[in-house]
Each structure stands twice: as structure tokens, then as C-alpha cells.
């Protein structure tokens, strides 16, 4: 059994870091892992997509459309773009946050409504929590905590610093409340 996770966001948000952290925990738990980094043009502000596959033995490095067990979006417009990866029964974890595309303003409520078409949608206030902790950069730790709880992965506490750990715990707490 292989679990396929697609993580998306906007360049600069820490999408890659989130994927790497998940992979590290999976290896510590004894699994095989493949993390495929889809950089795009390697610049900030573009769509970023990383695929993580975890299992006893993982072959293909990239998740196919309609094949993801989890889609984790650090930004809601990018969540729409990742819609195509969702399996029908997939969990769709979306940071409640919009980073506008320059010159193409989209109404956030419209985005959230469109995402809710998928019944496994979980809107997570990761950005809001990160701001409370002191910096938007902690939003990926909130999401990490959330996803780690869903995947029943453990063992992050050793290497997360104090603030990231706080964000991580907030995420875990939110996921436990499901």
C-alpha cells in the first residue's frame, strides 16, 4: 500500500520544506519514500507542487491525476489547481489563505465555495495561527502537524524549534478535533 500526497502552494511559502519534513518522519518510521519536487521555473510567486509517496516500497515518484489520497494546499487558488489529483475519497487539506495572482483578483469566498464541492475538504486556518505565533512562515508547521496527525506519523519533536513546534502542535490539535 502506497499513500500518495500532493502538496501545493506558491513559491516561497515553504512547500518543499513541508514535504521534506514529512519524508523525514516517514523514513524514521521505517517506510520507503519518494518526494518529487516540481519546481516550476525555480522562482518565487509561481505555482509549486511537490509529490510525496510513502509505503513499504515506492516505485513511481510522481502522483498521477485522480490518484492522490491527500492533497495539501498551502494556498487556496493553488488548491483549485490541484483539484485534478484528488481521488474521490481523498482528504483535501487547504490552508485558509489566498495569495492573489497579480492583476487577476479572485473573490476568496468564491474560491472556498468551489473547493467545498469535494466532500473531503478541510479548511485549516494555518495562516491565521501562524500570524498569532508571530510570523507567516510558521504556516507550514501548522499544516505539517495537521497532516502528521492524519498520517499517524510521529517523531518530529526532536528537530523542530520552539516556535515551529508550537505551530505543529496547533495543527495536530486541529486535526484531532475532526
Amino acid at each position, binding site marked *: 500500500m502506497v499513500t500518495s500526497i500532493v502538496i501545493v502552494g*506558491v*513559491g*516561497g511559502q515553504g512547500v518543499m520544506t513541508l*514535504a*521534506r519534513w514529512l*519524508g*523525514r518522519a516517514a*523514513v524514521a518510521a521505517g517506510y*520507503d*519514500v*519518494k*518526494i*518529487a*519536487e*516540481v*519546481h*516550476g*521555473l*525555480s*522562482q*518565487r*510567486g*509561481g*505555482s509549486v507542487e511537490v509529490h510525496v509517496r510513502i509505503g513499504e516500497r*515506492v*516505485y*513511481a*515518484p*510522481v*502522483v*498521477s*491525476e*485522480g*490518484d492522490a489520497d491527500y492533497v495539501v494546499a498551502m494556498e487556496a*487558488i*493553488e488548491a*483549485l*489547481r490541484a*483539484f*485534478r*489529483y*484528488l481521488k*474521490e475519497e481523498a482528504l483535501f487539506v487547504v490552508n485558509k489563505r489566498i*495569495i*492573489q*495572482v*497579480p*492583476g*487577476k*483578483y*479572485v473573490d476568496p469566498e*468564491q*474560491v472556498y*465555495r*468551489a*473547493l467545498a*464541492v*469535494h466532500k473531503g475538504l478541510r479548511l485549516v486556518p494555518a495562516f491565521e495561527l501562524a500570524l498569532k505565533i508571530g510570523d*507567516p512562515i510558521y504556516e507550514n508547521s501548522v499544516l505539517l502537524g495537521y497532516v502528521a496527525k492524519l498520517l499517524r506519523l510521529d517523531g518530529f519533536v526532536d528537530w523542530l524549534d520552539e516556535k515551529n513546534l508550537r505551530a505543529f502542535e496547533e495543527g495536530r490539535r486541529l486535526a484531532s478535533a475532526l
Partner: protein
Amino acid sequence: MKHLLLGNEAIAYGALSAGVAVAAGYPGTPSSEIIETLLEFKDRKVYWASNEKTAVELAYGAALAGARALAAMKHVGLNVAADPFHSAAYTGVVGGLLIVTADDPHMWSSQNEQDTRWYGLQSYIPVLEPSEPQEAFKMAKDGLALSESLEHPVLLRSTTRVSHVRAPVVVEPPAPPKFGKFSRDVERYVLVPQNARRRRADVLRKWELLKDFSARFMSVEGEGDVTVVASGVGYLYAVEALERLGVKARIVKIGMSVPLSKKVVDVVTDEVVVVEEGDPVVETQLRVMGIKTKGKIDGFFPQSGELSLRAVVEGLSKALGLGVKLADPAKPTLQPPPRPPYLCPGCPHMGTFYALKLAGAGQKVVWSGDIGCYTLGINTGQQDLATHMGSSIGLGMGIALSDREKLVVATIGDSTFYHAALPQLIDLKTKKIPLVLVVMDNEYTAMTGGQPSPSRAVPAERLMEAIGIKHYVIDPVDVKRSVEVAKRAIAEAKSGEPVALISRRPCVLEALRAARRSGFKPPKYYVVSDRCRSCGICYNLLKCYAITKLPDGKAWIDPSLCNGCSMCAQVCPYDAIKPAEPDKVSKWLELWSQA
């Protein structure tokens, strides 16, 4: 102990465990992490070279002198290095020479989709093709040893899904670097025609040997009525796709895809399905051997872009007549607007393009672009062509000569300038071709992650002085002066002489990293809503992606994206953009200029 390594890191560790002593490369996605990893090892000679040709030459020379050496680049880089690459096959080597290329199918960050395995066939250099990081480690290690034992260069061909995949890898510790001594052998190393002809015969003899040798990198797995031949990451997709389809098959895994082992004919049935990433290189060789194939040539698998599990499941299903059709993926009810890449907020190139746009307004300009972050000048309409490294000035000269009505403004980043524009600079001067050359010097190879560029050691103005090209230096964050100087440069070029504009300010991301380390936070800018008259100069002309156009046309700056460059405040005609912490402004600009 298993480490979660990127394929590129695994390649570096493989080479280290083989005692690599000399390595050089030019950064390029998806290959850059190979040299970056090797640079950590101070007992080796590891360099970022000015371009791929000098990188290969450095490694080739070292291998001629008996060292174990590596050169790394992306696929298109091998075109730049193609000259020494082909000669290396003729002289052979004494130590080991491993040339690593990372191909980029689907062109995630490249100008073309090129399968470097053809270069193996063309140059008579064998090609190893790993499927995942663990294998990349092993093939880098074995490749160097193989090269030394055969006295012949070896090409290691990776693709994005090997180079940029992170997976658990068991690594062996680095072996001490193996340097060497050069022994004179004129008949072998001086490729005058008479010598080269003899060497050609040797190369062909060696190639026949390699066709036997290639079998060592071939393995057969599983049982079944169907035979699938797979190489590289294609192997991984094939295994998983067969599992999904519930098909029992024999899989012939090809590790050395060029030259293909003669022994393939011993293991294949009358027809095989071929799964490979890139062009039908394995498939073509199979057909030459008289084997019937179903692969890319007849369209069972897509000829462009990357393989995917989906494409391989569907291709196998078609090839095996299974009639499996996968369901269409879900579509959202709201189509997200595309998010094309933009220059980073505060990118100095943003200021340079803005100044050039204003200076060139009302004139017929051909924007001759190049390969790098600044290719994103396409967003402001300031990129009419960009085809390869050095194309800005190279093609720009040709355009200037044939279209006398338009003025060519050639924009090129510093790393690309040193990589591919110096001979053109000499042509520019000696042919007296009037164009404006803009060297966008951010002092880093920024697009690939901030590798050092030669611009500090060899400032562009020194080259201009030496060659005798009129030039100006500007700071793009000083918008007003930049516009004035750009206007002057354009006027002078129009009067018939080449003029260079060197626009210098370090990459803002590098400056931010340095600032973060020292605990300094750059000031953020905000829009005073009452003063904003929705003119759109900031978001339409500057195209900073931290600036959003609100539904009423007013501007809004996302504080989480603003990097405090001040350019929007300078271009706003209504004084509606202000720094939140005015006392920090000059300190930040100063710190930044020193990054």
C-alpha cells in the same frame, strides 16, 4: 544508515565514494545540487565553471592526468560542451571521467526537451541511466571505476524525476581523492587528422567491446508471457503500472542504455513493450537489432513531456490490448487564473526593465532576451526572443544588422554574460554593431539557487574597458537616475555605436538571507488608500507581484510578500506608497547593496 537524499546528492556521494578528486559544472535546473554537494568536501578540487565547456575541459584534463573527475550540467549544457566531449572519446582518459547530464523532459525550466542519450550514440560514449537515487549513487560510483578501467569517458544521464526526487539512500563513506600525473603521449592526445584517424578505429573497436559490457547493467525480473524493456525512471513506472493492471510480465531493466547490450536478443520474445523517459533511444536500438517493439515510435507512449503512471498504464493497456481506460480527473467548478512566474518582489531586474521601458517608450525596440530569471521580462512585454544562453547579444547582432529601423536592446544576466557572451562582445566591437547591451548584474546565478557568479572577481565594466565598448553603470533601485542613463545609452546607440549598460544590485533573495541571519527585517511598504488614484503604474508597469489590483483599481501591497525595495514608492506619481518604518529604508538599501 539511510539518508533522505536528492538524486543529485546521491550522484555526488557516489562519485565521492569512488574517490573523485576534481569536479566542475555550470548550474542549471535540474542538475545544480551535484556540484553544490561536492563543494562541501574541501579535500577535492570542485568549481563552478563559467560554462559547461570549461567545466568538461577541466574534468577531461584532470582525467587525462590520471585523476578521477566529474563534470555536471543540465541537458542543454552538453551542447555547449559538445566539442571537448566528442574529442574525449577519441583520446580516451587515464583516470576516470564521468560526465553527468540531467535532462528536463516537459521543459519544467528549459528551452527545449533534449535527450542526451543521443550524444552517447553520436560520440561513442556509453550512457548509464539510473532510475532512482539509490541507483544514481551506485552508477556514479561504478561509472567512474568503469571509465578508468576502460580508459573511456562515461555519461551518466539523469532526468528530473531522478535528480529531483528525494528518497532513502544508503551511502558509503567518501574514498580519498584520486589525483594523478600527466604522461606525455602525443600520438594519443594530439588529434591532428593522422592521429585522429587511428583513434577513430580504436573508438569503434571499443564500442564493440562496450556492447558486450553493457550486459552487466542489464537485469531480468519476473515471469510472464509479456516482455517489457524499461530504462531510467521508466522502469519504476513500468513496475507499478503492470501491478495496477494485474499483468505478469518479464521486465528487462536496462541500466546502460547506450550502447544496448547485444545480449538483449537472448532474453526478448518476439515482441517487446519499451518504456523509457525522453526519446525512443532504447527502442530505436532494439529495432536496429531486428526486434519488434511497441513504444514511443508508434505512439503507444507520449513522445513529448514526462512519463507518468497514468501514461504508462494507458500505454501498456493499449500495447497489450487490455482496453483499460482511466477515468478523467476531477475538475473544479471555478478555474483558477494561471500563476505565471514573476520576478520576485524587489528583484533588481524589475527596476532595470522599468527603466528600459520608460527610456525606450515611443521608439521601435527589439527586446532581445536571454536565459535566466530576467526571461520573465516577458511579463512586461520586454522579451521578444530568448532561445539559448547568449542569444540576446548573439541573435541581437543579426537582428540589428538586418532591421535598420529598430533598435536592439539585448538583456543578459551576469552569469549568462560570462557563460556565453564574451566572444560576441568582441564581435560587437570589431563589427561596430549598434545595439544597447544591458548586463543585468545581480552578482549571483540567481535562478538556480544563488551560486556565485564571476561578476565580482571580473566586473563587466573591466571587460568593456578592455574591449573598448562605451558603458555606464547604474543601480536599478535608483529609478530616476536609471531612466536618465538608459535614455542616454539608447540615444548613443542610435547614433551608431554599441553601448553597454551595467545594471548592478545583488539578488534580493540573497540579501534577504543575509539580513535574516543578522536579525534585520527590511521595511514593508503600504498603500495610502486615500491617495491612490488607481493609475496602475505600480502593478501594470512595475509588475511587482506583491502588489495586487483591488476590485476598485486601487493598489494593495501584501505585507507578507513585500521585500522593501522602495521601487513602487519611487514610481508612484501620487506619493501614495509609504514605508511602514521610514528609518529603516536607507539601512536596508545599504545592507542589500553589500549582499
